[in-house]
């Protein structure tokens, strides 16, 4: 599966890394999103969907199976 990221909008909330820790991480100083796995396996789909919904800055879009 895949998704798009708009890093410019990231507010460093880290909600993505809590929702889908195998797919997203954060920079330590400013907390900006770091993508660990740009093509995660299908079983991560629900978690990536939730990360996109939970992100307070609409950074993760276009989540596709």
């Amino acid at each position, binding site marked *: 599966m895949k998704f798009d990221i708009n890093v410019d909008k990231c507010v*460093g909330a880290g909600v993505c890394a809590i929702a889908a820790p195998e797919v997203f991480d954060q920079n330590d100083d400013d907390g900006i999103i770091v993508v660990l796995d740009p093509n995660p396996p299908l079983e991560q789909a629900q978690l990536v969907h939730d990360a996109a919904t939970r992100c307070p800055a609409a950074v993760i879009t276009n989540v596709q199976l």
Partner: protein
Amino acid sequence: MSRSGGMDAKVVIVGASAGGVSAAEALRARGHTGPIELIGAEKHAPYDRPPLSKQLLKGELLASDVALRASTHLRDLNVAERFGVAATALNTKARTVTLADGTNTDYDRVIIATGVSARQLPIRNSVGGVHTLRTLDEAVALQSAIADAKRVVVVGGGFLGTEIAAAAVALGVDVVLAGKASTLLEGALGATVGEQVAGLHTSRGVELMTGPAATVHQLRVKDGQVTGVEFRSGEFVQADLVILAVGSEPAVDWLRSSSLSLTDGVDCSSDCSAGEGIYAVGDVARWHNPLFNVSMRIEHRTNATDQAIHVAERILNGDTTAYAPVPYFWSDQFDVKIQAHGYLRGHDEVKVIEGSLDDGRMIAIYRTGGTLTGVVAVGAAKALRQWRGHVATKMDWHDAISLS
């Protein structure tokens, strides 16, 4: 007759912002196939509020940049949008929502996500130069008012007031920030961290007035236009723009004729249900959080989505699992981003365990009773997430101290 939840239930969502949109999205992401209707009083497509007091006021984002989702997103999810029409009543017996255009829509499940609105002072009526900030329209109006202003008084030393003051001073306007607590953000973060935020504001040129004497007595008005603020201390501060950031009121007027309990927002059980087939999420919802054993109503952006996901799951699973989150918020103060996890209100002790705001890296931990209940940090995203884990497992305070 009992009407079922589940995958094909008809869900009506009232309030089309962070909470409402997330609920619709979470239902679909979990395979819900029934009709979903999303009703919103504002004519705008759903937009995000946190940038309104930050990038939008400073002119770094335009009104068109703050949309919550791409314009076709909800339609692609087969969600019926009804924007620009408010709900005016909920009939829990007939299971209908009445709209301002006189129509009714029936539901199997209804999700109340109507948020809060800005509290007004009783003195506001039709005085020019007095603003509040909650909606996009208010933000756009405020932005142009700041551009024309010379001297601004911001009333309210909470997150909204401090963010507005920071944005206004960055735009080159003289800013007086008046809060009636002993320091800025005292209610939210406690005095120790609040003092550091106050120091930051002073160093950037914001003039601070704090303590009970900084309570507004009345606005001075000439020819329908505000000319300044009289404080309880007797002091008068001249201003051509006054911004009220004095808290919020849950948007529950439309529910007064229903049987719901509305002591402070919509009173819910631990699972966020408020009656047969009725749920509430986001800023409007008060529920008992078993993790902290406290009844809370949280006005933070990520809670709206987390609670919406929780409710979507309850509707689909038909169970009553409690909603037990560790609340989270962030706030931008100038170039400093403050982040917090936990429930800090009513804490007994704050301990700064690393750095300070001036250093650009700070971690403070909060104790309530014998337990670690919260953590606030600046510039320490990963450490913050580890501490969040310790809050979630209710770490004993002594263990927390020995870790620090």
